[in-house]
Each structure stands twice: as structure tokens, then as C-alpha cells.
């Protein structure tokens, strides 16, 4: 989807140039487009009257922001302590091998993006995998790939 400049502006304008809303603006942009389009970064800098470098530094500091387009399915593997000792590494290996992408990458057909998160807070059901915000608990290593495909 090519980001529509008007749509970008509409999202940014909701915050009335409030400088402290920078993170929220970027979150709103990402929610709409699934990533932060380059046009969004420049427009945000202009609308909030902050240097482009600052918008860029905030967008790259926080791990949830992505400056490149992401796949249709965003798979997030929890690597919290509980998940780790219950074999999250093995799950990651299986999914990486099965989708042929590493954590942090998007498949070339734009179907899958694989991410690793540090604890999603469902430690009681470790190991956990999120597929587009749908939570899967007690994931079995040999079934992990089926779950995300």
C-alpha cells in the first residue's frame, strides 16, 4: 500500500503540533500503515517543529517502530525468561528455518515478518508466540511452524 500523504497528514494533525506527542504520532502512523513510511517521518518533523534527526532517533531507539514495510503476518516470539527456559530458542529456530527468514526480517513475498520480543507477560503459559496480536501459549516446538503459517 502506497502511503497516502493526506492520510499521513490527518493522523499527524490530530495532535495539534504537540512536541511531547512525538512517540504517540509515530505509534499512530505505524498502526495505520504497519510501518512508519519515510513521508511520515518528514511530515512529523515539520508538523511538530522538531529536527528531522530527532524524529529519526526516536523512531530508531524504540524497538517497536519499523521504518521498513512489514509482512501481512507479524510473528512475535517471546524471549522472556520463562519462555527462554521452556525452549523459546528451539521455537525460533523452527520458525526461522521454516519461513527461511531470520528474526527481524520480512519474507520476500511480504507475507511474514518475524520479530523477537522480550516478554509479553503471559509467562504462565510459556513459551508464547504472537501472530498478529493473537496469543498462543504452551507452544510445542514441533508444532510451532504450523501455528504461524
Amino acid at each position, binding site marked *: 500500500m502506497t502511503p497516502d500523504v493526506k492520510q499521513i497528514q490527518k493522523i499527524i494533525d490530530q495532535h495539534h503540533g504537540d512536541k511531547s506527542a512525538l*512517540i504517540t504520532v509515530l505509534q499512530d502512523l505505524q498502526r495505520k500503515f504497519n510501518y512508519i513510511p519515510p513521508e511520515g517521518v518528514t511530515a512529523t518533523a515539520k508538523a511538530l517543529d522538531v529536527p528531522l534527526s530527532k524524529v529519526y532517533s526516536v523512531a530508531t531507539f524504540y*524497538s517497536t517502530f519499523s521504518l521498513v514495510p512489514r509482512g501481512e503476518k507479524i510473528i512475535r516470539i517471546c524471549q522472556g525468561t520463562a519462555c527462554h*527456559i521452556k525452549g523459546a530458542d528451539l521455537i525460533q529456530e523452527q520458525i526461522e528455518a521454516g519461513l527461511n527468514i531470520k528474526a527481524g526480517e520480512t519474507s520476500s513475498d511480504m507475507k511474514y515478518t518475524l520479530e523477537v520480543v522480550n516478554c509479553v507477560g503471559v*509467562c504462565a503459559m510459556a513459551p508464547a508466540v504472537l501472530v498478529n496480536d493473537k496469543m*498462543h501459549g504452551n507452544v*510445542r516446538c514441533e508444532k510451532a511452524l504450523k501455528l504461524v503459517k
Partner: protein
Amino acid sequence: MRIDSIPKLEKWRKKCQREYNSRKRKIFVCLGEACLANGSAEVYDEFKKELKKRKLSDVQVESAIKTGCHGFCALGPLVIIEPEGTFYTKVKVKNVAEIVEKTIKNHEVIDRLLYKDKKTKERIAEYGKIPFYEKQQRISLRNVGTIDPYKISDYIAVGGYTALSKALTDMSPKQVIDEVSKSKLRGRGGGGFSTGRKWATCAKVDDEPRYVICNGDEGDPGAFMDRTTMGSDPHSVLEGMILCAFGIGSTQGYIYVREEYPLAVVTLQNAIDEARDSGILGDNILGTDFCFDIKINRGGGAFVCGESSALMKSIAGEVGEPRAKYVRSVVKGLNDKPTVLNNVETFATIPVIIDKGAKWFAKIGTKTSTGTKVFSLAGKINNTGLVEVPMGISLREIVYDIGGGIPKGRKFKAVQTGGPSGGCLPAEKLDLKVDFDSLTEAGSMMGSGGMIIMDDRTCMVEIARYFLSFLVQESCGKCVPCREGLYQLHKICAKICEGQGTMEDIELMEKMSLTIQKASLCGLGQSGPNPLLSTLMYFKDEFITHVKDKKCPAGVCRDLIKFVITDDCTGCMACIKVCPVDAITGEKKKIHILDQELCTQCGSCFDICKFDSIEIK
């Protein structure tokens, strides 16, 4: 409906209570994160449908109440039927009709859905009698699981906002702070600083405006109590913040919630809107001159933002880098103005202290650590979930009595507390009394309350490496000792896991750790080496085995192990099914064969084998 006076609030409370109690028999369906993942939303909908269909006279459709997390997450979806207190576990949609027919209509208990005690093999019907709940004392989690988090009327019916009306009628701001000071409440976020002293210092600073911030950036991996409180009882957090604002004279508050907790944001926002509409938040709260409002800020996924000065920068829309704290944030915090920052659990405890009095609270727990603490039990333990216990309880009671011990009869090895800033305590420390000071003394820390149990299949060297890798990723990069030091520590530790380490490496790690602790700018770096140092203190032998014998006794570090099928193999084919790389072949009732060329040493076969016929070599 806007309530513009305290008597009107009390009048409203009576109405809420009538409504809450009119549902003579209540069916509580847990919609906490863990139960949701197991399909509890569908179970709830099915109850509504079933009740509507049957139109039972003493059970209205509204009696199916969606609640937040009950804590016993291992057994979800959970359903509790009051007033009997019947506790059903792992309830599925197909069980709903039977529950309505038997338990609701005919007062019969369905045995097979009850909790089964693993030790005595007995089924227990009443939820208060289950060992998991029996030893708990719930203060911060008082309403979690018994009210609908989306209804302010439920919170008010169970006594919510009585502390606020008490403070506004009978107490001065100073008296509120004094009461909190007298309770000796210490911050539940991890540091354990006196909450009363923090508030008193902030109130004295001659500068305005003052801010109240609730830290909901529960970044410690393995901790989920704040997520539960925010999602299951949001008003108790708001009430605590309002009381703080009244005490210190603030008009604006913020709740900083992790990006990973979208559900908490929804419940909190709904609670804020409801409180605002009812005149409990906003201008002229309950018709008095006191004004205070709360805004939610979503985090961006940075662990360091749990640190107070980094969090405040993030609220201001900047990169979350901590600052050196020559001037404390109670004096110059958010926007350089006096700020009180407390964590979710601390705020949720405040209303009870004001309501029941400091004396009552200070009697619970130990002398220097009063009250209760919520822990999230996870890892290799039978009963995973949330537990709230009085301070001073022993680790053994938590692990064995409440937690029900280690699954599959394996051996307890360590308990990790305090997240990446804490440490791992061995079996010798099981009788340690859990409070702020004794945990620190033992080389770990209270932290926010994550408690991860590890068994003999967990390699302590690898765990140290895991925490270091976590911290390397999350270090903001501002100061050198943390950015470079932790990076090097991780590199060395990984080398040991690969069997390439030397004895000098261990010594070097110890030395470097001390420098990092002393020279880092913020808490993340200062406490970063803790997981490594505590494992070195209690499990040094395991490090030495990795270095000298090139072996990993737990069977985790892949470069050092080999799995072998022994002659005891019964040929049950279980390992063949779980092997992710199809390295095991064989027929039923014949000894299986493991192809070492294909094997990735993942250990899945070892964990599934019921006959101990796979060995780690």
C-alpha cells in the same frame, strides 16, 4: 452521571451494591490474558447464550461476569460460581451447558472439572481451600477476579473510592502522606524506597506544577503482576494515584504502559473515562476544590524506560535515555518539575492503607518490609500464576506449598528473582525469608516480583548468558561501562557456553562486573552484572565444568553435549514424533536410532522420554 458531592457517592454506592448483590448467584469467567488465549471469551459468550436460552429465575443473564485474571493461569479458562465458591478449571465451550444444567440449576458439583491436587490426588471444590489460594493474602490483588474491570459500579460496590471519600472528608493532604509514611510501605517496583518519604519530599518542594506518574512499564521478563492489576482492577490504580495527587498537591498524572500490553491500555482508558464521567477525575473531584486528571502514555518497547528518568523523557516524547541523578526526580522530574513516580502495585495498595489505616497494614509482613507482595510464578513449576503473600514468607513455601513443586518430578535448581537486575538463588536458600533486605543480602533482589523457577534441565551458565544478551540489547548506549562492558561480558560468557572459555575468563568477568556496577550511569548498568555474579557465587562449579571438562551437566549448551539413546528404549516412538529435524528413526517396540549427523542437540527427545532412556553425554 456526574457525582458532585461525597454523600451522593455514598448514595450511589448503595445502589451499586444492590445491583451487584442482586445477582444472587454469580458466574465469574476469567478473561485474563492466559485464559483468553485458551478461549475463555468463547466460554463467556456461551454462558450468556445458555442463560438467556434457559431464563433461570434466580440467575440473570448478567450473572455471567467477565473478570480479570484470577491468578491461577496454569489451569485456564477458570470459572468460579459464587456464593458457593465452586472452582472449575480448564472449562471449554462444550462444558457450559452441563455447568448451567447441573451446577446452576440443580446445585450439583461436576467432579471432573474441579481442581485436582497433585499431591493428594483429591478434587477440591471450593476455591479458598486450594493450596494455591489458601496461603495467599490479597491486598493489592483484592478485587482481581471478582469484579468486571469495565464497570466502575462494580468497583464502587466492593468498597472502591471509599478511601478517596475518607481523605476528602476527614483528612488533610499532610495526613494522607503521614498515613502512608506510617504504613512503612516500600515501593513495589523493585528499589524498595519508602513511598511516604518520597511523597513528603515532593510535597515540600517549592515549585509547580507537580506530577504523579504511574510506572506501568513492566519490562522485567517473567513479571506480569502489573499487567494483571491494570487489566483486571484499573480503578484501584487510579484511586491510589488520586490519593497521591491529593497528598502532594498535583493536578496532572500520567500512566506509562508498555506497548506490549494493549489490553491494559483499553481497560485503563475505559476506567479513566468512567471516572471522569462520574466526577471522580477531572475538575472539582466529588464537588471539592481538588482537581486532577490522568493521561495514558504508551511506551515504545524499551526496557530502559522502566528507569524513572528515562521514563520521564519518554513521556516528554524523547529518546528514553536516563540522566545522572544529582538532583532527584521528586525535585526535578518530568519537564524539570517535582514528580512522584510509583509503580502499579504501590498505587493499588494505597487505597487499602488509607481505608484500613497504616497500623493495620504495618502489622502484616516483617518489620522493615511491611504488607504483602505479589509474585508471578513461572518457569519450571506446577502452579504458574500470580500469588500475593505476606512479606517474610519463605521461598520454600512459595515454591512447594503454593507453587506445588517442580513438574515431572525433576529437581529444583534455582529461583530467579528481580529480573535482569536480580539473581539466581540455589536450593540452599529455599528457607530464606522473602523481603527487600534479605533478598539483596543473598545477592539477588526483590525487583518487581518476577519469580522464575528453574530445574536441573536449566544451565546456569546459559542463563547468565541469556540475561547478559538481554541487557546488551536493551542498554541505551549512553554510558560506556554499560554499553561496552556488558557486551564484553556477554561475549566471554557465550564463549564459555561454547566450551572455549578459560579459568582466566571467569576471573576477568568478575573483575569487569565490579567496574560496570560502580561506573554505570543508571540502574540498568549498575545492576546489570547481578545475574552473572549471583550465578558465579552459587553455581561456580557449573562454570568450571564448562571450562575444564567441556561439559554441560544440564544438557543445554549444544556444543558440549550429545544425546544418546540407551538400551532401555522401549520403542514407544514418542521421541520420533517430537524431533524437529527427523533425526530419530525406528519401529514400534524396537530400540530407536538417533542420527548424530542430523541431531541439533535441542533436547526435545530427552524431555519427552518417559523411560529415562535418553542420556546426555
